[in-house]
């Protein structure tokens, strides 16, 4: 556990009007790990993700990703730096098919640099066509890994919930990230689906991905995370291995009255 941090959150603070959502939050995510971010509702977990992914600007502190300060960068540049995310409430593109959703994601990968001006279809239509065909092959391969290949042309939001979650993860992975932020990936899934998800995560990490995961499902967190950070009311109250965290008295106090399993 002595590898330098891939993602380093340093004294992060975020305020909304009178509410301090994040206060002096610091923790580090090491490469090749699955890192859990847990805490009661309203503790600032999703806000944390929103700041990391560039949707919000921090009011204080820094975020360093692989040696580069990314706090303050616009969201699209952060994605191109190698951080992808999924959303708590699913944000699939409603008017598009599963395949198209993933294709959009592919465009966000470092190799898929979008042309700023859409010259290609007019000036070099054959090249645009070839690039598109190539992307489709890649996208289908990705869908295949998630057993979604036969649903490629289905409107994304017409799928059952569990499959939609998979589509969103596939789409995020299409951007070829080094760090994947997952916001409650197991919410609404049954035990079987959760187990499949667990296996997927382990597989992905084995291939070199790093995962930072917000979750409420304690069994999943304790089972698959190598490191856990606990937030409560915008502050870090514990930061360590799952075993250390689960017996931490502050953590227990924060969750008092909550049955999470």
């Amino acid at each position, binding site marked *: 556990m002595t590898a330098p941090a891939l993602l380093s959150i340093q004294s992060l603070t975020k305020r*909304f*009007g009178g509410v301090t959502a994040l206060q002096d939050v610091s923790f580090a995510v090491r490469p090749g790990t699955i890192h859990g971010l847990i805490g009661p509702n309203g503790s600032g977990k999703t806000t944390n993700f929103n700041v990391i992914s560039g*949707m*919000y*600007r921090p009011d204080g502190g820094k975020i360093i990703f692989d040696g580069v300060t990314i706090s303050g960068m616009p*969201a699209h540049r952060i994605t191109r730096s190698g951080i992808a995310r999924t959303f708590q409430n699913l944000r699939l593109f409603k008017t598009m098919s599963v395949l198209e959703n993933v294709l959009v994601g592919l465009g966000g990968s470092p190799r898929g640099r979008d042309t700023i001006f859409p010259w290609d279809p007019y000036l070099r239509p054959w090249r645009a066509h070839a690039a598109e065909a190539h992307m489709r092959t890649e996208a289908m391969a990705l869908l295949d890994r998630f057993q979604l290949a036969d649903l490629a042309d289905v409107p994304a939001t017409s799928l059952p919930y569990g499959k939609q979650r998979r589509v969103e993860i596939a789409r995020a992975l299409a951007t070829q990230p080094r760090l994947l932020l997952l916001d409650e990936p197991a919410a609404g899934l049954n035990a079987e689906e959760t187990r499949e998800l667990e296996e997927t995560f382990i597989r992905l990490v084995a291939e070199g991905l790093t995962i930072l995961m917000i979750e409420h499902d304690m069994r999943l967190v304790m089972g698959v995370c190598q490191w856990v950070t606990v937030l409560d009311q915008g502050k870090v109250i514990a930061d360590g291995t799952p075993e250390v965290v689960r017996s931490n008295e502050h953590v227990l106090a924060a969750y008092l009255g909550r049955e999470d399993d």
Partner: protein
Amino acid sequence: MTGLLLVAQNIVGGLGIGCVYALIALGFSLIYRTMGLVNFAQGNLLMFGTYLGLTFYMGLLGLGKFSPFIAFLAGIILCGLIGIGLERLFRPLANLDLSYILVGTIGIGIMLDNIANHIWGSEGIVVPAPIANNEINVGGVRISPYIFIVMAMTVLLVIGLQLFLTRTNFGRGLRASAQDREIAACFGIPVNTMNAVAFAVGAGLAAAAGLLIAPMIYVNPAIGDSLGIKGFVAAIIGGLGDLPGAVIGGLLFGVIETVISGYISSSYTDLIAYLLLTVVLIVRPEGLLGARTVEKV
């Protein structure tokens, strides 16, 4: 007249006009702050409210003349009612993309413009000041006394607004900004009523602004767009959604415009207003007073 006196004169005049811009800007910022929406029809409401008030003040439609005070109130209240009506009209759209309401207010704006044209005609009218308006001489600077009325009324309105926002239930409810709208709803604050109040007050402020400036300009149905834009520039300078900023932005813009108009013809000062708006938005969209409510996500 020495340069310094000229500048002083322009500043006084600019502050007067600036008060009017401040009121328009307040309307923009209030509605934006409450609903997250730019009210495109703000300028048109100004024009319409002005005509409504002037109808009573000058007996325009044969309704008889009333005192300036009553006419002023009538204009503001009637315009406020239109504002409430607009909120009611667009309520079904409130949960969709706000762009729809924006476009809707564009449609309303153009309707107001042309309905006014239809009712009151497109030729302008000259509005007499409610007081004897002979220029007085204060230490070598020539000022028309009406400016002080404008400033005084503006101060009253701003104080009234401030009291309304801090002391009344309505006002406190309004202060939940657009970002916290969901939280406000969780606390049982009726969002639709808040929106209606915001629209009514915004419209009323617009009418007040127009009525105050009426004796100083050539009033016709086309003034809405131009004054609306300038009020918007003022609101942006102060930071859209920031109420004190709106006032400061209005005063600042009024002074800048008056000083510049000493050197360039008036149609080109309008041009400068629009270009200034663009520059400010490119360079510092959160306004000169910093990011308080505007966040580029």
